[in-house]
């Protein structure tokens, strides 16, 4: 189906959350358990973002509408 969304969070979401985590840790008054949990989440988000940034390859898809009005996409990457 057209426009199927990725299930993983988007890069924008990862970076936004990472910023929140860094700010929270910078403010954190020293609940060690909480700090460690935030840190671990931050590392995971960072890893996901880094992977997206280094491994992604821009994809191009053509959107088509069939006679019934349903949408589908076709890769245009071999242009």
């Amino acid at each position: 189906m057209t426009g199927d969304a990725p299930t993983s969070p988007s890069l924008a979401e990862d970076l936004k959350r990472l910023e929140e985590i860094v700010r929270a840790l910078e403010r954190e008054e020293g609940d060690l358990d909480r700090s460690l949990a935030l840190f671990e989440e931050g590392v995971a988000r960072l890893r996901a973002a880094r992977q997206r940034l280094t491994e992604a390859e821009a994809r191009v898809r053509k959107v088509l509408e069939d006679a019934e009005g349903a949408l589908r996409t076709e890769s245009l990457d071999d242009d």
Partner: protein
Amino acid sequence: MRGELSGLKVYQSGHWYFTLRDAEAQVRAVMWKRYAPPAEAAPPDGTQVFAYGIPTVWEERGEFRLTVTELLATDRLGKAQLALERVRKALERDGLFDLARKRPLPSLPERVAIVTSLDGAALHDIVTVARKRWPVVELFVVGTKVQGAEAAAGVVRALGIVNRLRRIDLCIVGRGGGAKEDLAVFNSEAVCRALAAVVVPTISAVGHETDITLADLVADVRAPTPSAAVEMALPDRTDITRHAAGLALRLGNALGRGTRIAGERLARTADRLEAALERQLEGPRRDLERLKAQLDALSPLRVLERGYSVARDGHGKVLRRRADFAPGAPFQLRVSDGDVAARADGTS
């Protein structure tokens, strides 16, 4: 009469007053409200027109005047100009050019819709720049004719499809450069209204640096060319990677700071624990002192200190009764600081 329109004024009453001129002469003219189109449709000065009317005399001034009943642009350009003005006024009246409705572009778009011709140079430029700049992006191309008779309907349909795509961050609509007449589709009222109805922020990229189309005024952002639109829309991967690296550094530092504070707190807690133990131990320690004193008091040595002494025979056996002392027998007398050799003289 045929001439160029000049000094047109539309009064509150709805009457139009203007001058018609050609290279050699000019004549003042009036078009009464019942003949005049709505004020919005007033053609701009310089429009070449055919004017149908009757010659009249303006008695107050003793002036000859043409009373016009119909005004037609002489050429296609003039007609197009009139139509354009009409559309512009209509869109303006409906607030489609209002700056207040301009939406900001998303900072990190990942799914971008492109409305353009599938065979045009515009698409090639867009893909090339996107690949170089922001490989994270996925482009959804909705193809349409962008010039010719069917173009307006095609673009309207394509914009409708964009609204049905899921999770789109941004829409770029445009074409490469073309003749001025080829831009007509982006001045079409239907296209402009469809563009305004797109649910995500829009960038127009009509590829005509000098001419601004109505679609440019309706879009959230106007780009001079399709490549420029992509550069405005997409961040540079290098910048974002650097930003992520900065966040990684701060993350590490922040945890370091967090754990240091936690460590200090832990140390303070340990201090308090020690102090509490100290307090709890104080009582028993006092009891112990008291007990020790009592034990000391009971110690036989302390009794000796008070002047008592203990007699024992050579085997250490305590001599408690008179019968224990044989006459002339030696014994040891234990006093506070040691033993004294003694002998019994007899019994009294």
